[in-house]
């Protein structure tokens, strides 16, 4: 069993609810999973930035306490339950397919289903559903993320998306840290 450490920024109300009732698949971002930043020296700031963005988009408007809380978690996952899209050649194969099949490579909406098709086929072949997807995503906008992030060294930060239908089985909260966020 592998243990992956991650961070998740949310409101104090929601953090309390998570502590009380556990994680639930809910329409936080796309309603398709629970998103964590993989542990790095910036993962607290990244989680805080996602919180700020969600707050700016008024996702917490109905919460009693919208102050920031960073939740640090352990994601428990067997090696073959996680797919790292970055290191297994998936992106390169998707590019080759897109070019070969004349999919508009400049259109994100056209390319994203190729990822979906590819991963689903891979799951069929493996006979499993990947519980965790590991994928590099850009840092949040500077409005929300104040760190002078060293892209030239680190590249984009790694995001872990937990897709499991019963995330209680795979996530331990190890710390919930309340942050002041003006």
């Amino acid at each position, binding site marked *: 069993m592998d243990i992956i450490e991650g961070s998740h920024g949310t409101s104090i109300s929601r953090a309390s609810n998570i502590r009380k009732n556990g994680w639930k698949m809910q329409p936080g971002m*796309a309603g398709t999973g629970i998103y964590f930043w993989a542990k790095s020296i910036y993962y607290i700031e990244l989680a805080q930035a996602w919180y700020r963005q969600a707050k700016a988009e008024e996702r917490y408007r109905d919460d009693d306490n919208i102050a920031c809380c960073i939740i640090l978690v352990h994601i428990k996952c067997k090696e073959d339950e996680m797919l790292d899209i970055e290191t297994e050649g998936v992106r390169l194969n998707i590019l080759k397919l897109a070019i070969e*099949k004349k999919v508009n490579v400049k*259109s994100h909406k056209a390319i*994203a289903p190729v990822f979906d098709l590819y991963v689903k086929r891979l799951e069929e072949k*493996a006979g499993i559903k990947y519980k965790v997807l590991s*994928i590099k995503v850009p840092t949040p*906008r500077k409005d929300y993320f104040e760190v002078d992030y060293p892209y030239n060294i680190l590249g984009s930060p790694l995001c872990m998306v937990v897709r499991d239908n019963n995330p209680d089985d795979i996530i331990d909260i190890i710390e919930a840290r309340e942050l002041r966020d003006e």
Partner: protein
Amino acid sequence: MNKRKLSEAINEVFEELNALSEDEFKAELKKHEHGDITRIILETNALYACEIEAESSYDDYRYISYDRFNLPVASVNRYIALPEVSSYIPNLYQEVEWITYAPAPFFSLQEKWGFGNIQLKEILTDQLSLIDKEDIFVSSMVTVSTNNTFPYMQAFPGKAILITSSTPGNDIIIRDEESELEWAA
């Protein structure tokens, strides 16, 4: 599945998908338009490479690829009246979706160097391959009010860049409610 088997499976999937005809492949893609991975990929902006801090002059900037800019994660509708625009220019639907993320780099670069509408027109045509350069007119920054005669503006009041075309129905609006920037005419 260990690493070696996974690697083999990845290549097998590639071979199987590559063996499909173009039409078969696109039919398969249609089934995955709303899949959870599709949504994850779009929602996390995983298709954007990275943030680039552009520190060069405008002359250098012209050759920076669009995909290299920092692109906002914020929701589409805050930046562009997408449903309305797409109904006006259905043949440009794909391109319009693509430029929905454009305002942040445009605004930040404009703020930095103060480039004007002619340059933006070039960027739109050169970088986005949108429509013919002669077919675009970029207006000044406008404040759109609910009294405006354009129905899609009424639906989305606020500051906006209005890009109009000489071809009827090819108007495009890019909005940025948060920007306080003055548009350099």
